[in-house]
């Protein structure tokens, strides 16, 4: 039944091709972007939450 439905759609093959193209383009682009980031930038980003900008008297970040 499903085969009949799919085959009866005009130009259905294009959906599969478009999907795979979007998929490959998306992941290649994302990985390329992530892996070309400089280590300095990444370290700076990773340490962002540790500095909340609180003035020292208010900074409770190490209080336990």
């Amino acid at each position: 039944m499903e085969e009949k439905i799919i085959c009866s759609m005009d130009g259905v093959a294009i959906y599969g091709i478009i999907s795979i193209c979007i998929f490959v383009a998306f992941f290649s682009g994302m990985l390329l972007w992530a892996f070309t980031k400089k280590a300095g930038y990444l370290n700076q980003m990773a340490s962002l939450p540790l500095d909340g900008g609180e003035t020292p008297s208010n900074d409770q970040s190490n209080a336990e």
Partner: protein
Amino acid sequence: MNIETFKYDNRIVRAFAIMTVVWGIVGMLVGLLAAVELFFPGANLNLQFITFGRIRPLHTNAVIFAFVGNGMFMGIYYSLQRLCKARMFSDFLSWFNFWGWQLIIVSAAITLPMGFTTSKEYAELEWPIKIAIAVVWVAFVVNLFGTIVKRREKHMYVAIWFFISTAVTITVLHVTNSMTMPAGFLKSYSMYAGVQDALVQWWYGHNAVAFFLTTPYLGLMYYFLPKAANRPVFSYRLSIVHFWSLVFLYIWAGPHHLLYSALPDWAQSLGMVFSLMLIAPSWGGMLNGLLTLRGAWDKVRQDPVLKFMVAAVTAYGMATLEGPLMSIKTVNSLSHYTDWTIAHAHGGALGWNGFLTFSMLYYLFPRLYKTNLWSTKLANYHFWIGMLGMIFWIVPIYVAGITEGLMWKQFNHEGFLQYPNFLETIVQVVPMFKLRSIGGTLYFIGVLMMAYNLYRTAKVGEFEPDTEAQAPALEKAAVAPHGKLSFHRLLEGKPMFFTVLAILAILVGGMVEIIPMFLIKQNVPTIASVKPYTPLEVMGRDIYIREGCLGCHSQMIRPFRSETERYGEYSKAGESVYEHPFLWGSERKGPDLAREGGKYSAAWHYTHMENPRNTSPGSIMPAYPWMLTQDLDTNSLPMHLAALRRVGVPYAEGFENGPAQRDLQAQAEKVVADLKKDQITCDASKEIVAVIAYLQRLGIDIKSAPVAAK
């Protein structure tokens, strides 16, 4: 460098924190009551307002939108200000968000027990409340973006990316799935029907889990875990890959809730494949969280905050491995409709959301009140009783789920069903339901311990309504040295650009699945003998929705021999074309009802509804004595029929003004005469008459004439 001094708003964080605890207690208490009703059906004291079918959605909504929702806002309002080095964009919007959200929760707590529900899982609230949700959510989104735009930190940390994806995706999901036609103040019918409604609903339902229970909490994990461990996240690069692959893949996976249903096979396969792929980013995120603690595991031993976080992240890993495995069609054929799904959901809810929320509360209260936690020992006890509770909750329900799945499929040597009576399979797992309620009680006691600990912490400390902070203004810092280009302007544009990219990532998946589904509308094999419900049946169906019957009864027979032997011919897409909303259900605590029509006499249904134990000894179904005494609200019929016509059910124009009432009376008299044959006297105006008419109609259309595919 121009250093600016400003203040973080702690009041709003505290308000959300308190309500997180309050709604956590309420939501879990309702869950506990629901759990007890499953082995002691009389626990509702014959009150319709707290019957299982009505409080189950109350429990899920309270835990998801009230407990986790407030926890999410609490975490975001705290972390966003500090990550942006700016106070929230607008205090008014913050408080509008707070009070609006609480009002929505209260209205849910009133309307759901009263039976006002759309019946769509996790989207049960009726249309006026849906509009309120949209308004309050938009206030939150504006506040979020406003804060990001006025930030003093030029970079957007990955947690903010997760918050943005939550904000935009929930907006898209809520609007798309809430398309309903009002039929009175607190009644509406879904615009979509049958297969389409099912696909849109589970595209929503699955992504509500993804973008309400997962992405905001991942953002909070990326903020609070490094803060609590006082060290940066293990790999920022991995967090980038985690974010983009997660938001891109998640949106495609919805159809895994509809495997082996009447949804076209290609959509089912797409959902399964993308679900499997989801293991990669989910585990990337979990490992990123756990590895952040490398070399700091000694702290985990000491600090309850980290203890809860590690358990939460581990539970996230377990749930996100299990989910994809359950999406494999062969596994799903066993797990679907059973308690396995419930165990899976609670692994995520109790472990991931619950424990991460507790860790944030233990982290925040001492900081908001500028003191130490009142009792670390009590928090540690909470951790262990919570863990124990979780194990006692989840393990019996896994056993129950797998037992149900295997018993439903078991054939004897002669080729007949080993357990032809559904009741046998439920009676078998009742001891597991009892064990589960013990687990739930333990978990609940832990929450009470936490509430007390936090209360004492607040009593000891002194609340700091605003935290003073300093940071350089972004404008000065961002101007390029040559002065030609204001870098700040580009940066200001970035969140918007980022948002557009995130929307594209989520829309692609949704569109590729949903657009062909609308094209297929013209191709879906319609069945000539399938006709719209009669007015009396519509009223019966409305009561079926009101009572939440689909919480326990599916109406979707899968194409397995074990199901067709038990219930009859498997369900076809064409049978649901007038189903606004679809009532396929997702869980069986009772048998499937798709072919219920004609199986039993009207008298059997009457007696069964009065007290299910009268016809089925050992049944765990609640009694519905009020259906026998309450009058049908026939005044609302014209409005209901007109609304159904507007969404595409072919009732003739003017049918609702007169002919419908006469039709209803005539059919009601027939049901009454039927009952009379078995010495049951019943007034034609009672609700039970409509319910019997509806149940007797289920699945008989394709029996009445040969199937004619167009």
